[in-house]
């Protein structure tokens, strides 16, 4: 106390130190506990791929955080942080909770601030629930046969080792594959499988896939853009508990006052809607590997709707032109897209020049 009495200004160091210590404490604890555990024993990429295929999951509950910083112009009213709308995942940061007991008992909850959307599979019942709309949808799904061993494709004779070798052979010409045993995901040591494009024309710097050291489950995927230190896209667990969650988690009864839509039976993959959407012409691939460009044609009138939200967004994009014609350019951190005035759409993880070259073909 005498020091403080002689030099009263020194007192200000106390709150300052407290602020620094408290701000650093949460991250320091994570780093220290990971350092105390040390790195994991070395494993090759092929060994890791085998581990992932042979991983047996007896149950899981965890929190997943997804962040996307794709460098897109933000569109007010579409998605964004803290929204519990399932379509909002394209921008900002989102928190999901996942519970898994077996393929027939899964629940995924998208947490919004004061809202939640749920997808619950309990046996043959599949429920979706939205707290904001107070609505639920009910499907019935066939029971999946959990005893079928996992393989890359039905009837595929590959052992996990062969599958891993085949996968590595397929990507090696275009990709440098390395491993790293020092990642920490959700406070657990993890391996990382690092994929780097050999072609320098790609906007993707690296893709890092974290694989939990103990359960061998993929726990995080990060995509880094060229020239950025933070991942442009990241989805990973922030908490991870490999134990079977209680059955009560998967029980869902629509509460009174809910609009329930009965959607009947889902028969399997053939009911999944065409991801290309209606009227999109067959896409053409130009180039190969990481620098390939997808060329397609939008249905007529898709963007000519004056005053519509799509047209308004398009108006804000810069105009570009060249020997290939003219159009509007959308540049993100991970991809570039050009929509030409005659309705051609070119998308790729490459610089605009490469897109123009592909369009000029």
């Amino acid at each position: 106390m005498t020091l403080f009495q002689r030099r009263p200004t020194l007192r200000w160091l106390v709150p300052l130190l407290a602020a620094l210590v408290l701000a650093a404490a949460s991250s320091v604890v994570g780093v220290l506990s990971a350092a105390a555990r040390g790195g994991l024993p070395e494993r090759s990429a092929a060994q890791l791929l085998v581990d992932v295929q042979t991983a047996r999951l007896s149950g899981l509950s965890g929190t997943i955080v997804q962040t996307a910083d794709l460098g897109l112009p933000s569109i007010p009213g579409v998605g964004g942080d803290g929204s519990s709308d399932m379509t909002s995942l394209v921008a900002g940061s989102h928190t999901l909770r996942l519970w898994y007991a077996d393929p027939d008992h899964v629940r995924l909850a998208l947490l919004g601030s004061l809202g939640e959307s749920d997808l619950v599979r309990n046996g043959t019942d599949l429920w979706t629930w939205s707290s904001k709309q107070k609505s639920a949808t009910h499907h019935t799904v066939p029971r999946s046969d959990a005893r079928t061993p996992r393989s890359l494709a039905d009837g595929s004779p590959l052992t996990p080792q062969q599958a891993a070798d085949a996968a590595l052979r397929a990507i090696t010409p275009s990709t440098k594959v390395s491993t790293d045993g020092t990642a920490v995901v959700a406070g657990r040591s993890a391996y990382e499988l690092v994929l780097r494009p050999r072609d320098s024309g790609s906007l993707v710097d690296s893709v890092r896939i974290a694989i939990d050291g103990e359960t061998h489950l993929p726990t995080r995927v990060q995509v880094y853009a060229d020239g950025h230190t933070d991942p442009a896209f990241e989805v990973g667990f922030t908490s991870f508990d490999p134990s079977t969650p209680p059955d009560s988690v998967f029980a869902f009864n629509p509460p009174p006052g809910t609009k329930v839509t009965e959607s009947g039976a889902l028969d399997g993959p053939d009911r999944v809607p065409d991801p290309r959407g209606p009227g999109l012409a067959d896409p053409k691939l130009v180039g190969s590997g990481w620098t390939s460009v997808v060329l397609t044609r939008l249905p007529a009138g898709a963007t000519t709707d004056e005053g519509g939200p799509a047209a308004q967004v398009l108006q804000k994009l810069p105009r570009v032109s060249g020997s290939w014609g003219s159009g509007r350019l959308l540049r993100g951190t991970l991809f570039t897209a050009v929509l030409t005035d005659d309705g051609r759409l070119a998308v790729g993880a490459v610089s605009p020049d490469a897109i123009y070259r592909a369009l000029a073909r």
Partner: protein
Amino acid sequence: MSVAEAVRRPRPRVVSTRLLRSELRLIFTRRRNIAGMGVLAAVPVLIAVAIRLSSPGRDGGGPDFFSSVTENGLFVAMAALTLELPLFLPLAVAAISGDSVAGEANLGTLRYLLVVPVARARLLGVKYAAIAVFALAAAMVVTTVGVVLGLVLFGGGDMTLLSGSQVGFLSGVARVLAATCYIAACLSALGAVGLFVSSLTEQPIGATVAILVFSTASFILDSIPQVSWLHPFLLTHHWLAFGDLFRAPVAWDGLTSGLYVAAAYAAVFWLAAWARFLTKDVTS
């Protein structure tokens, strides 16, 4: 030690609550503070009456928790807390904490208070304890009025959580109380900021305005995605995490981070107030 000495120097009680009691009496008997509590209590009344009087087909829509009010009266309290969290509750805490040191300095009573044989650090501790009690009381007033009026107008029963599952009435009440205590803890952290600002000035109004600017700036920064790296450090970032108590199972991550941030702010700003107040020249 002789008997005479023991009589002359009575052992002080380990913890004397006299100073705290006097501080609380000051806070809760001031007419302006009672009027402020009345404003806080008016919001749940307004919500409950407005929803009761509106046509029954019009449920759904409105701010958070509004559509659930007609099914369970407990949600009147939650809707009121959610509405008052951005402005009314921080304003109440800002008024009280801004007044705590600056108000005494302004009235000229601070020097008399310092004559009391109590260390300045302890005086500051008591001042802060009184602010924390007020924060809890302010949140509880909103909850109590909301719960009572909600149960009278809409009835109780099972509570539908955000996750779509239902819990019993008592569990619902417990969750509402826990949410209230969480909000009170968050507001107490703002009160520590207030105590510090209050020790800087002799103008209680200026202090109150500064505290409100602080909490509002926090809310604004929290809504700007470009500074998302700053968000976990903002006092108000986790305030809405009280909603996580209404999930099944409860999502504790946001609540624990919120309590950690609140405790950190309380500690840092109380220490800052201490650094300022212990060497402050009281001139008024």
